[in-house]
Structure formats: C-alpha cells, structure tokens
C-alpha cells in the first residue's frame, strides 16, 4: 500500500525520517569523550577543591598541535586532569594527573612518548588502533623506548633503554644486524669475539665441539649464543675450524713442565690473587657462585679448554696471540708463569667433554663444515681463514620500532603487537621456524625486556624529528698517548680500566688530570707496588712487575702530560702551622664530618666510602686537595663526593690538615704486622 495513499505514506515516513535524523546529534552527545568529561565533573564535585578544579576545567575536545613534531593529540579530551597535581591520589583513569617528567606536556604532546593514535577520540582507536599500519600505545613496560627517539646520551631515569642499548652491543646483536641510532651513529659491537685463525693453537677439536653445542655449559656467562646444532653439524664445523687454523710461532714457546703438586698449586693460587686476575676474570667457588669480574672470560674450566703451551704463551704475552686483547701484559718471569699457568691448567671439568668422541676428520666433513660456517655466518663475528666476512647478513633493524604489523608473520596464539613479536623473536628465535639462522641467546627476562625497549626506540618518527631535539651520545674518543710511554700504556692496557681524555674503561679512576693530583714519589712507588686506596673495593690495580725504568718513564709522562689547565700543581703549599692544622682537624671532624666517608686516623675513623686519607699528604698535591675541596665534580665529573661549598679559608685549613697526614710510620707498622 506504499502508493495507495501517498498522503498517509508521506506523513508517516516524514515522522520516521525525522526520528532517524534526530539520532545523528545524539551520537555526538553520547560520544566517549563527552561521557568521560561528565564523569570527571561528577568525580570532582564532592572534593574540597571542586570550585578551583571546575573553573580550570574546559569542556569540548582538547587538542595539542605541534606541527614540527607531527603531533596531533586529543588525549586531553578524556584525560582532562593531566595537569591537576592535586588529583594525584585519584587511582582512576582517565582522570589521573601526569606524573612529573622532565618535559612539558604542551611542548611534547602525549603520542611522542606513549605512541598510539593521538588524533582519535575513542578509547579503542586511540590506545589500540585496529589498523595494522598504525601505532598502538607502547606498553608501560617498554615506555622508555620512546625516550630513545631523542636521547642518544644515557641519562639517568631510563635504565632500561640504557641497559638495552648496551646489551645490543655487548651481546653482539650488531655484528649481524645493522642498527643506526636516530642521530645517524651506527652501533658498533663492544664484545670482542676471538679470531679463529689460530684456534688450533689454543684448544682442541673436542672442546670446540662441546663449546659450539652449548657455550653456556662451559661458562654460564658466555655471550656466544647457542646455535642448536646437530651433532653431525657440530662435528663438521669443529673439523673445519681445526683444519683452517694456521699455527702462530709465538704460541709454540717451549714449555717447562707445569708443576702440579699441591704446594705449586697453592703458590699459583696466591699468584692469581696477588695479580688481581679476579678484577676481570671470574672463577666458580665451592658453592658454585662466580667470584670475580666479567671483563674477561670465566676461568672455571680453562684447563679443559686451553692447551698448556698456548696458555703459557698467552699469559706471557697476550698481544702476541691477539693484538686487540684487553688483557694487560704482565711482566711475569718464567717461574711465576709456570706457577700461574699451572694453577689455571688445573681448573678442569672432566664432565664437560666426557661424551665427546670424535673420529679423525674426513675431507668431506671439513668441506661440509666450511659450508655450514659460511651459511651460518660464523665469520660475521669471528675471523676465519678462507671465509670473507659477509655483509648485510641479517635484516637491518634501524626502523624495527615502526615495522608495520602487516609485514610481520605472527605465531598462532601470539598477541598481535610489535612488542610481543620482538620479545618472542629474542627469546626463542627458532620458534618462528627451525630453518631460521638467528641463534638462541642466553638472556634473563629483564635483559630481554631491555633489548625490546632499545629496539622499539628505532622508529621512523625518530629520524624525522627536528635535529634540535636530539641529544647526542658521547662521542667515543680515539685518544692515543704518544711515544715510549704510550707504547708502554698500550702494552699494559691501561685503557682497559682507566679512562683518559674520554677513552677507556670505567673500572678505575679517570686519569685525565692525574698529573695535577699526585706526588711523584708516591706514583713511582705505586707502580712498583699498587696498593688500594679504598678499603671496600674488590677490584684492584694489579701488579704488573714493571721495571724501575718503566715506572719512572710512566710517572714522568703522567706528571708532565696529564695536567689540568685549571690550576698549577706546584702552587705554594699553605703554611702548615699547628693552629691551621688544628682548625682543619676541627673542620674535618665536626663542620664537614668527613670521617663519615674517609679514614684519617685508622684507630678512630671508620668511614670507608671515600679513599683512605691516612697518607694523603704524601700522595696528593696541596693544590689538588684545595681545588678538590672547592669542587670535586669540576676535577672529576661524576665523582660521588658532594660539593659542600667549602669557603676558601676552610679549604685552606682542611688542605693544611690533610697535607699533614703523611702516615709513613703507621703504614710501616701495618706492614710489619
């Protein structure tokens, strides 16, 4: 009857159309952001500061537009209380104020850090975009990844990102994957996989077999990943590695038989201790805990791995085998060498290679091993004779944080997020297919999270940000000391622990201005017999057995070259009259309470955070002490001692007091005991 009575149809349909059209504005009225704003007004109604909050509240859609960052944020339409600090104890989103951060919300917007779709005004679209090409919000767990879009320095407050970036280089990820930071600096690996060109000098085929099958069985801290090799493949690879190895003349030093009696072992153990090998190397103690540093490899099973001749040659001169090694060249004499090598050779583990029985390698095995080594990319990390280092071996991860989900193959039952994918890929790479080359790394959950954080920072947006936002990382210095002293410093590998002019490790004090700080006699003596200055330190400077001539040369070089331009080390010492000393003592003990951290009188003082000051008067120059008291951080950035704003006169008195601490008698006594 549609057209039977067109008037009736016209009237009825007109009403229906009107009702339908009335729904259109209703949809706006019931929009999510409007509902949340009403909820906010309900929430603040009962509060004491309701009037203030209501006055500050503005209805409607709130937009932050930052054209130069490409940010359009409407998050504030629902998160209306981002700047209301007084609502800090409101545990309900979206009404929580933003916790304090070093950036202004108006200048950065929300999506720069939290990602997600800032332009959306619905919960679902803004937080978890349904479109595969659009960024969902980054989970709080990986939030620090956003900091890495601008920060190439390593500020405190983002430990996860900093640790993650360190892991990327330390675990050698960047050997295979190329990763360029947003500021254009390509990450370089900081691990140092050994060259395998002379591997047969060092170890046996059986050890290689057992090692590549499971490196962590040999050493729990080994960074080499597990390639999950089949027995035949490990057999062939070990055969090839032995076959390609060439012999180094230096490794074939004649060996006097290592003494293995108990007394010699005991002497070797104390040699190991005296040489402070534990500063860098760890050995499992009886309880199975690792004792020692993690700079060098773990030595618990070194006797199983290293051939005795090689071990002696290596300790005798590490650079003879590996010119790039961090290990210092101890000047051990033959007897010492025998003792310490004997001690290490005894560090064996019969279980490690118990089941390894390898027949003579056939040429076919060697050929197959070479094929495997080539295919698996061993030469990306290790130098191997006859195999070129492959370029572009694994996918470039420079923009992995912006990889569209459409380009990702997810495993079934896996959350369809980039973070989940990257995490799974790091945790169990082979779960994506046994034919994949990426090996299994030995990482703790926290480390995986850190790596994911560092990788998610590699976004497309990061590279398009204005350059003024970028905070560059510390450029690595390639400082090289010159001359004979320079050669000696390289031989002793001072830079493994000490940092000078921006180059070197952070295990020991920065020596950039050491020449201004110390007195000649003390330094000379210190080289001959390094004693530690800090009572609680585990890592200590080893005794390198340098000759008098070497020690003298090094001392002169340091005093001459490593001088701060800020003051003259030889500026006259303040008069050391007793009253000044007494005043200094008063200041030391009461006004500044230095004994909280330092020891001047070993009988009385107990503080052991800072160096012991019992003989500081014969160690440091007066000028250095004075300047140090005036501002420790200006002399050695990052040092723990707080700047106490000590006045000149107080500093003078304290300097006088400290310079009076010669401490000869006491140390002599201590030595006699």
């Amino acid at each position: 009857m549609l057209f039977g009575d067109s008037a009736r149809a016209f009237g009825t349909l007109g009403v229906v159309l009107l009702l339908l059209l009335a729904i259109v504005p209703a949809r706006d009225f019931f929009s999510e952001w409007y509902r949340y704003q009403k909820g906010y007004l309900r929430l603040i109604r009962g509060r004491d500061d309701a009037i203030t909050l209501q006055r500050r509240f503005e209805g409607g859609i709130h937009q932050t537009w930052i054209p130069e960052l490409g940010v359009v944020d409407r998050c504030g339409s629902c998160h209306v209380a981002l700047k209301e600090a007084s609502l800090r104890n409101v545990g309900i989103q979206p009404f929580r104020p933003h916790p304090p951060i070093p950036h202004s919300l108006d200048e950065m917007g929300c999506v720069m850090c939290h990602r997600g779709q800032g332009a959306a005004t619905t919960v679902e679209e803004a937080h978890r975009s349904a479109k595969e090409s659009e960024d969902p919000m980054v989970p709080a767990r990986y939030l620090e990844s956003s900091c890495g879009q601008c920060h190439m320095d390593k500020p405190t407050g983002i430990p996860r990102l900093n640790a993650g970036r360190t892991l990327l280089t330390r675990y050698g990820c960047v050997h295979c994957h190329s990763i360029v930071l947003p500021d254009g600096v390509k990450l370089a690996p900081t691990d140092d996989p050994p060259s395998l060109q002379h591997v047969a000098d060092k170890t046996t085929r059986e050890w290689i077999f057992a090692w590549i099958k499971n490196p962590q069985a040999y050493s729990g801290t080994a960074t080499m990943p597990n390639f999950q090799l089949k027995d035949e493949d490990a057999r062939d690879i070990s055969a090839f590695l032995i076959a390609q190895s060439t012999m180094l003349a230096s490794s074939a030093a004649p060996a006097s038989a290592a003494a293995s009696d108990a007394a010699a072992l005991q002497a070797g153990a104390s040699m190991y201790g005296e040489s402070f090998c534990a500063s860098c190397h760890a050995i499992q103690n009886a309880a199975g805990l690792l004792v020692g540093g993690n700079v060098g490899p773990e030595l618990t099973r070194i006797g199983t791995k290293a051939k005795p001749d090689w071990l002696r040659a290596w300790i005798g001169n590490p650079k003879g085998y590996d010119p790039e090694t961090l290990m210092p060249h101890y000047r051990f004499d033959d007897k010492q060498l025998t003792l310490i090598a004997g001690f290490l050779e005894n560090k064996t583990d019969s279980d490690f290679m118990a089941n390894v029985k390898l027949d003579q390698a056939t040429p076919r095995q060697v050929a197959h091993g070479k094929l495997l080594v080539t295919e698996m990319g061993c030469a990306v990390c290790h130098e191997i004779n006859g195999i070129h280092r492959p370029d572009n071996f694994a996918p470039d991860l420079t923009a992995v944080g912006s990889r569209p989900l459409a380009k990702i193959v997810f495993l079934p039952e896996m959350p369809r997020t980039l973070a989940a994918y990257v995490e799974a890929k790091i945790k169990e790479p082979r779960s994506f297919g046994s034919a994949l080359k990426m090996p299994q790394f030995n990482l703790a959950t926290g480390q995986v999270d850190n790596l994911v954080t560092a990788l998610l920072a590699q976004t497309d947006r990061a590279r398009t940000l204005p350059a003024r936002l970028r905070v560059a990382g510390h450029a690595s210095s390639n400082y090289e000391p010159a001359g004979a002293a320079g050669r000696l410093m390289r031989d002793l590998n001072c830079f493994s622990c000490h940092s000078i002019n921006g180059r070197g490790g952070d295990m020991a004090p920065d020596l950039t201005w050491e020449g201004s700080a110390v007195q000649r006699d003390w330094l000379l003596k210190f080289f001959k017999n390094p004693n530690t200055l800090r009572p609680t330190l585990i890592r200590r400077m080893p005794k390198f057995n340098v000759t008098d001539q070497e020690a003298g040369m090094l001392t002169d070089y340091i005093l001459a070259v490593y001088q701060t331009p800020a003051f003259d080390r030889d500026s006259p010492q303040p008069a050391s009259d007793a009253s000044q000393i007494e005043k200094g003592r008063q200041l030391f003990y009461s006004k500044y309470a230095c004994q909280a951290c330092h020891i001047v009188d070993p009988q009385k003082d107990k503080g052991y955070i800072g160096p012991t000051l019992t003989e500081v008067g014969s160690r440091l120059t007066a000028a250095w002490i004075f300047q140090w008291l005036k501002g420790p951080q200006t002399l050695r950035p990052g040092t723990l001692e707080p700047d106490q704003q000590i006045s000149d006169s107080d500093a003078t008195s304290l300097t006088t007091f400290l310079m009076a601490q010669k401490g000869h008698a006491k140390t002599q006594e201590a030595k006699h005991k």
Partner: protein
Amino acid sequence: MSDQKPFQAAIESDSRKAPVRIAFVTRRTSPQVKAESDQYVMTWPEGIFRVLVVCEVLAIILVTMSLFWDAPLEGLADPMQTPNPAKAPWYFLGLQELLHYFPPVVGGVLIPTLVVLALVIIPYFNVNVEAEGLWLRNRGKRLRIFAAVVLALIVFLIVFEVWAVLAPTVLIAAAMLFAAREANNAGRFRRWLILRPLSFWIMTWFLASASLLTGIGTFFRGPGWSWVWPWKE
C-alpha cells in the same frame, strides 16, 4: 474498447521508420480527441507526492545505513605496501574478474568498449523494434544461427577458461531453446518467454554475466585473486 465507433483516432508507431503520430481522420469528419480523463492525473499533487514518498523511503534507508554502518577507512595510503588482494571499487570488480581470464587488452578494453558501444547503439539498431518474439518467425533459420553463435561463444569461453561467464551463457541458451519449442499448450511462463525478443535475451545474458562476475570478484576472491569462500575466515 472493442466496439467500433464512427470516429476513432488511432495512434500508431511505424517502427521501421522514424516514429510519428498519425491520426487517421475519415472523410467529411473532423478529428475528435476523446479526453482520457481517467488516464491522466495532475502532476501536482499526485505525482509530486509520490516522488516525495519515494525520496523519503530512500533517505530513510540511506540515513539508517549511515547511522549504524561506518564507511570503511583503512590505514594511510602506503605505496610500499600492497594489500592482498588489491581490489577496485565493487562496480569495477566484474571488470577486474574479467582481467583474471583475459589479457588486459581483451578484458580491460575490448569487452567494456563493446558493451558501451552496444548500449549506445541499441535504440538505433533498428532490428525488431516492435519487439516481436525471437522465435515467432523464421524459426528454423534463427535456430541455426543461434546454434552457431552459442557454440562459438561457448568454445571461446572454454578456450579462455572463463567458467564464470560460461555458466550464465549455458543457462540463457537453455532458456532460449526452452522458449523455442513449439508453442502448443505452453504454460504462462513459457508463453511469456516466447514473446521475448532477441535484445531481451542478449541483455539478460549480459546482466547475468556481469552480476555473476561482480559477485565473484567482490566476495569470492582472496589473496592473489585466488578463490576463497567468504564464510571461511
């Protein structure tokens, strides 16, 4: 209408020539136009109201759709990333489906051009404007032509493996043969079919093929233009 009256105005159209209205007026009479008052209605309000009602119905349908069914919006266009399958708008999917069977020149150019040309010339193609049933005259001769054309077409379609068009072709051909049988004691439907002219058959074949191709392209084509069942996700 059947009883003869002395003055009868007749309107006829001679379709072979340009159609004109001719009033035959008998000698010594004047033309008398009989107003068919019951046949005509005033445009206002009868016609206009009907149009308004139709527009209201249409508006209601479209507004309802718009209220409860959002227009699609995918991610930002990315030339680096082709969705699989990349589909044209639905009304071109028949064409895209044809491209799956024929080389581009045939499927993308020849066939559409022919279709448009055919549509344009239909009214000028002065065959059978009276719309007489295809089989009412020269049945034997027409059957032979029909057999030749349909066979050629089927062979052509089989050679190109165009199963999607083959099916309606066979179906329509069968219907034509069904209509072509002797018209004794024909049922209502067949009597109706018998009266269909050639153009009806061609258009119906075109409509069926186009609908089927569009439907297949829209619903049954997945990644790599492979066949998928829409209900199997």
